[in-house]
């Protein structure tokens, strides 16, 4: 044990200790790095979700706007009156519609040079498979086949009950998929990974097939085709997006008109019917209930099973397709407003009755009296309601009997597939009852929450938030094991809650942005144990590191957030000024966070996000005016238009687009300059925007790019970067068009575009 050895030991020990400490330091640093990444990921998610739901609240505001019009606006000229009447008049689709003419698609010629898929009926499994393959190769199905398929689909759907039943005795496994939202890649991936539908492989698709994504049409074609081919094993539930009014806003209407310029209208018309004939729920082995949104403490499966689901055309309004004229006779005249004008066809018919849950005012009432049996109104209404419910149930039973071919009280037996409309005009109530409608809205729009109880879903503007006790109550009442629902995007594509009694399944991967979330589907065998498969249908994401993935998604979220901030510039400036008492032009970063939240109401962690949104200043203060100016510069490139006008347009663009599409009754994609001005005038008076007529005229003229007195809606929206990416991607896809009309004109317009196109990022 000489001194040499002990020194060696000493050094060795020191070195070991140093290495240990160095490693510990690196690990400590790295863990902080990943924690910050995780926080950014969570914040990004929150941004997307809050913006998405804020958009849904816009829908509520849109309804309020039209209600306001009905109540307050008196046209000052014949011109204006005509304009308003256009909005308020009957259903634009002619009454003796193509509906009765089942053979209308037969007259459509398929050109010889058409290279897309061809269908013949009855469909065979090979046809359905070929369809998937054709779509994978980016072909487009000819309008004739689309219409044919939709007609056959409707015929099939009419025979189905409101609640489908599936048994694992027959098909050994059942695969349940959630929202697809027009993302064909995900559907193709599911079939690739899980196998195509077959008698041994049952599928349930739980609603929201359309809107937002760019291939909603193709998804519907595939789903309907398989449903016709394997009627016992392939099931579809209706989602809240299977609704023509929702489609006006969220992109499906646009997609159809874009892909089918000549026959799009017909397609939309029949789809309206197809959607409301979709079943409402599916039951597996009488134990697992699958529906799109959720349940409420009032959910009554027996009532849901019996009601006439066809009557609920849209969950956005209670009335049916039937004409105002007829309605007006039946109603007690409470729909008339100052000018004796009929209620707009897209508003709830009777506004004195408890209105749609989509009206903000009524939501308060719901919140208070959610668990009581009658939503609003005097005790007397209870009897009336009960009577109505009973009557409609009786009528519904009669109809079911008729459809099933059983003798009916009057001794007449009618062919089940006869146009039901003819019948219903004669004897049935034209609308669903309040209760029926509420039941359907609840199952299509509700979301689970962690707290006990049941309260109105103010975020979505429809349905409710239901707690674990509500779930438990329902499962016990109907002797069920658990619920499967969709409706909400989840980072992992699925999520259990309520002690694993509720499973959310969401099948649109990369929903907000490439890399934002996985998709998933769930398989059930005879034991009904859920087996979940996750995926992300985009090769790029797999090659990125976590850091890169998060950065990418985050950039997208921040861009959306900055856009929103810009849209509220005026209010933000006012709010900032309140904090700047001494008029220094500066506010603290803390004040900034408070001001922003009080204007935007997004509930986001602004202090966490601050470094990404505000260039850091050393002394913790911000020159707010120049910050707002920088935001504006980033968003705009139009010098000659008043910036506050543009800002207002930004804020209201979804609403504006919806209004434009409503005005554009023949879905031509064009509105006249005059219509544009009128719309804007009405809208701005409601929104208390102080814009001169001259300004509006200038704006309108500057948007009319080829000076023909008409504004191309899509161009208008794109000129202000208001078009969603899906549209520009659709333009670029170069699908072989099966039919087109005067596309020459449209093409010319396209070339004279004067726009900032938002760059599609994350291309696969």
């Amino acid at each position, binding site marked *: 044990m000489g001194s040499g050895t002990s020194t060696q030991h000493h050094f060795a020990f020191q070195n070991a200790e140093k290495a240990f400490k160095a490693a510990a330091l690196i690990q400590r*640093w790295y863990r902080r790095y990943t924690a910050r990444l995780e926080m950014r990921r969570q914040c990004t998610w929150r941004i997307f979700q809050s913006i998405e739901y804020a958009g849904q609240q816009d829908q509520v505001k849109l309804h309020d706007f039209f209600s306001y019009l009905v109540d307050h606006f008196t046209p000052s000229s014949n011109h204006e009156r005509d304009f308003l009447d256009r909005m308020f008049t009957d259903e634009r689709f002619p009454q003796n519609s193509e509906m009765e003419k089942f053979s209308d698609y037969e007259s459509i010629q398929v050109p010889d040079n058409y290279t897309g898929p061809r269908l013949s009926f009855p469909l065979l499994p090979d046809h359905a498979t070929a369809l998937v393959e054709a779509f994978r190769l980016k072909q487009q199905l000819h309008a004739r086949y689309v219409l044919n398929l939709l007609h056959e689909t409707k015929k099939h759907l009419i025979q189905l009950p409101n609640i489908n039943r599936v048994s694992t005795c027959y098909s050994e496994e059942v695969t349940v998929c959630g929202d697809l939202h027009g993302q064909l890649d995900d559907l193709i991936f599911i079939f690739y990974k899980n196998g195509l539908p077959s008698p041994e492989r049952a599928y349930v698709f739980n609603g929201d097939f359309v809107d937002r994504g760019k291939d909603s049409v193709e998804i519907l074609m595939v789903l309907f085709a398989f449903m016709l081919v394997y009627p016992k094993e392939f099931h579809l539930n209706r989602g809240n997006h299977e609704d023509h009014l929702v489609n006006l806003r969220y992109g499906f209407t646009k997609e159809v008109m874009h892909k089918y310029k000549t026959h799009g209208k017909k397609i939309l018309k029949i789809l309206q019917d197809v959607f409301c004939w979709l079943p409402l729920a599916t039951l597996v082995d009488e134990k697992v209930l699958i529906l799109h949104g959720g349940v409420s403490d009032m959910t009554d499966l027996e009532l849901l099973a019996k009601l006439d689901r066809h009557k609920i055309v849209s969950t956005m309004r209670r009335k049916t397709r039937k004409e105002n004229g007829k309605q007006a006779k039946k109603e007690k005249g409470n729909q008339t407003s100052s000018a004796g004008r009929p209620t707009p066809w897209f508003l709830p018919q009777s506004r004195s009755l408890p209105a749609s849950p989509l009206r903000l005012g009524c939501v308060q009432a719901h919140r208070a009296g959610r668990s009581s049996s009658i939503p609003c109104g005097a005790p007397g209404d209870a009897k009336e309601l009960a009577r109505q419910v009973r009557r409609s149930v009786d009528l519904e039973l009669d109809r079911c009997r008729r459809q099933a071919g059983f003798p009916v009280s009057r001794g007449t037996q009618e062919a089940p597939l006869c146009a039901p409309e003819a019948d219903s005009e004669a004897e049935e109530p034209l609308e669903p009852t309040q209760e029926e409608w509420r039941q359907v809205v609840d199952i299509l729009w509700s979301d689970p929450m962690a707290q006990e109880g049941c309260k109105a879903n103010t975020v979505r503007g429809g349905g409710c938030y239901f707690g674990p006790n509500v779930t438990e109550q329902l499962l016990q009442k109907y002797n069920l094991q658990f619920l499967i629902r969709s409706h909400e995007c989840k980072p992992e594509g699925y999520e259990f809650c309520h002690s694993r009694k509720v499973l959310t399944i969401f099948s649109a991967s990369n929903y907000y942005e490439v890399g934002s979330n996985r998709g998933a589907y769930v398989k059930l065998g005879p034991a009904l144990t859920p087996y979940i498969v996750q995926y992300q249908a985009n090769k790029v994401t797999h090659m990125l590191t976590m850091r890169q993935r998060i950065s990418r998604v985050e950039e997208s979220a921040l861009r959306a957030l900055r856009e929103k901030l810009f849209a509220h510039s005026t209010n933000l400036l006012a709010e900032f000024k309140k904090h700047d008492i001494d008029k220094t032009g500066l506010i603290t970063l803390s004040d900034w966070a408070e001001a922003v939240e009080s204007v935007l109401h997004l509930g986001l962690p*602004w202090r966490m996000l601050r470094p990404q949104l505000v260039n850091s200043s050393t002394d913790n203060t911000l020159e707010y005016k120049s910050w707002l100016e920088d935001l504006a510069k980033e968003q705009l490139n139009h010098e000659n238009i008043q910036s506050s006008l543009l800002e207002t347009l930004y804020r209201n663009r979804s609403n504006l687009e919806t209004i434009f599409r409503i005005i554009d009754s023949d879905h031509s994609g064009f509105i006249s300059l005059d219509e544009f001005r009128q719309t804007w005038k009405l809208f701005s008076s409601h929104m208390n925007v102080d814009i001169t007529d001259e300004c509006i005229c200038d704006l309108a003229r500057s948007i009319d790019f080829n000076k023909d007195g008409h504004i191309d809606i899509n161009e208008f929206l794109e000129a202000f970067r208001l078009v969603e990416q899906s549209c520009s991607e659709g333009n670029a896809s170069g699908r072989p068009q099966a039919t087109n009309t005067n596309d020459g004109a449209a093409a010319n317009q396209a070339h004279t575009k004067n726009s900032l196109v938002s760059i599609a990022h994350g291309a696969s």
Partner: protein
Amino acid sequence: EILVPEFHKKIKEAFEVFDHEANNTVDVREIGTIVRSLGCCPSEGELHDLIAEVEEEEPTGYIRFEKFLPVMTEVLLERRYRPIPEDVLLRAFEVLDPFKRGFLSKEELIKYMTEEGEPFSQEEMEEMLSAAIDPESNSIHYKDYITMMVIDE
């Protein structure tokens, strides 16, 4: 102190991001992320001690905001668990690279990170490797790596 109300707001924000049930509690496993995103850089051991301070008497797996707030405020006021400056980090890598090659091999990195200090889990190791290792040389050039990571912040 003037700082306290501002700290309170920051802490509340960070906490709420993980309060998934909106009932002022977070899963104890998220505390590390919350503390670190508030600017602190504790070791695992230090974090463990902090959690012990904010846990319930009978640990439930959840941490309540009422207990977390005062403790975290104190941490921020005292400027505890300061972050590591770039140059200190560089020196740490250099300790592990005594021959001053400028890089560590993949095996060396794995060995140090999973056997020394407060060892990484497999997941943590894989995640670090995916960003740090240059696939051609199968090594980490730590100076470049540090620069890249710091830019991110």
